[in-house]
C-alpha cells in the first residue's frame, strides 16, 4: 500500500465508529447507511490531497458524509434551512408542565441505568433534521460554528434546531415515564 493510503486510513481509523453511527442514525435503512458511508469515504480518499494537515480530519470527513446524506435527502436539507424562529430558548419554561420530566431529573442515573433504550428510541423518533443537529452536538461534540458550516446554515438556526430537538427528546422521555410508571417505581 502507498504512503498516501496509510496516512488516510490512520486518520480515518479513530473516526470509524462515529461516522458509522452517524450514517446508521441518519439513513433510511442499514444498506443505505453503508452506501452513504462508503461513498463518503471514497470521496474523502479521492480528495485527500486537498485536506490541510494540522486541521481537524474528523470535521473534514464528517462534512463530506453529511453532504452525501443530504444529497440523497433534499427534504431534510430544506428542513435544516428553514428560518429559525425567534423563540425563547428557555428549556425550563418549555418543560414546566412536564411533571414526569422533573422525576427524571431527580433520578437521572437511576433512570438511564434502568431504561437506557428509552433514550435511543426517543432520539430515533426525532425529525431527521433535528436528529442530525442533536447528534453532531451531543454525541460527536462539534461546536455550533462547525455544525453551521457543515450544514451551511446560520448559527442561530443551529441553536434553534438543537433547542427543539432537546425539548422534544425530554418530552418523549416524560411520556415514557408516564406510560411505564417509572415515577411510581423509583423512590
Amino acid at each position, binding site marked *: 500500500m502507498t504512503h498516501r493510503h496509510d496516512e488516510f486510513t490512520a486518520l480515518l481509523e479513530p473516526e470509524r*465508529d462515529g461516522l458509522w453511527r452517524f450514517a446508521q442514525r441518519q439513513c433510511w435503512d442499514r444498506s443505505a447507511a453503508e452506501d452513504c458511508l462508503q461513498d463518503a469515504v471514497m470521496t474523502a480518499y479521492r480528495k485527500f490531497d486537498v485536506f490541510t494537515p494540522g486541521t481537524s480530519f474528523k470535521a473534514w470527513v464528517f462534512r463530506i458524509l453529511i453532504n452525501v446524506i443530504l444529497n440523497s435527502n433534499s427534504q431534510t436539507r430544506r428542513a435544516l434551512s428553514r428560518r429559525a424562529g425567534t423563540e425563547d430558548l428557555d428549556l425550563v419554561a418549555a418543560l414546566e408542565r412536564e411533571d414526569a420530566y422533573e422525576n427524571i431529573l431527580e433520578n437521572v442515573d437511576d433512570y438511564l441505568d434502568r431504561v437506557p433504550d428509552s433514550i435511543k428510541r426517543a432520539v430515533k423518533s426525532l425529525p431527521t433534521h433535528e436528529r442530525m443537529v442533536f447528534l453532531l452536538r451531543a454525541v460527536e461534540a462539534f461546536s455550533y460554528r462547525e455544525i453551521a458550516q457543515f450544514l451551511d446554515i446560520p448559527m442561530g438556526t443551529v441553536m434553534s434546531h438543537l433547542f427543539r430537538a432537546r425539548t422534544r427528546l425530554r418530552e418523549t422521555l416524560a411520556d415514557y415515564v408516564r406510560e411505564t410508571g417509572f415515577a411510581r417505581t423509583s423512590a
Partner: protein
Amino acid sequence: MKCQQARRLMMVYLDSELETHVTDAVSEHLDGCDVCRERFDAEDRLERRTGALLREATMPEEEWESLLDSLGRPVTPWWRWAAAAAVLVAALSLLLKSEPHQDGLLHEMMRAHRALAMGDERADVSAADIVGPEREAIDAFLEQRSLGVLAAAIPSTIEGHPIELVGAREERLLGQPAASVQLRCCGTPTSLFVMRRDRVDALPSEWQKALQKGSAEEDGLRAQSLAGDDVLVTHVWHTGHEPPPLAVFASL
C-alpha cells in the same frame, strides 16, 4: 444575573458556547443559587449520559474491513469489466423473463393494500409491525424515514369525508423499502403508500410500466400516484367509494 436569565442560557452555557464574560456571569449566579445549580447539574448529567449511551454503538469489524478493501482495491483491467457486464446482461435478461412482477409497482401496492386492509390470509402481517393509530406516532414514523409529506396533512374530515387513521407500517415493494399509512375514509379501507424516488428509480424500467400511467385498476381496487421531487405517493382505494383526491392528502 437573575434565575430566569441564567436558565435561558443554561444549555448554551453547558455547551460552553457563551462568550467568556457571560459564562462568568452565569457561573457567579450558580455559585449563589442552589436551585439553579441543581437544575444545571441534572441537565448536564442527562446530556452527558445520553451522549455516552449513543456513543456505545460501534462499527462491526467486517464492515470496517470491507471499507478498507474498497479503498485498496486494485484497478480492474477493462476486459474483466467487459466480461462481468456480459454476465450481468445475461443474468438480467433471464431474471426479467422469469419475474412475475411485470405488472408494475401500482399493482404491487394494490396487493399490499389487500393484505393489510382486507385481511388477505396469505399476507404475513403482524400487529406488532403497525405503528399508530395515534397521529403523533404515525407522524414520527414518517418523519424518521424522511417521508413526512403526509404528516399532519390528514385531518379527521376532508371535504366532508370522515377520515379515521388506522396505522402505518414499513413495506417492501418489489424489493424496495417503502411505508404505508392505512386509513378509513367514510369507513372504507384506504391505503397511502410513500416511496423515495431513488428507490423507485432503482427498479427495472419494465416494472415501472403501470407507474408511468399514474393509475391502475384491478379487482375492484384503484391506485393513483403523485410524484414529487423526492417521493412518490400512491393512493389505493375501493372503486365503490370515491375518496377525496390524493393531492389533498399529500403536500408535494
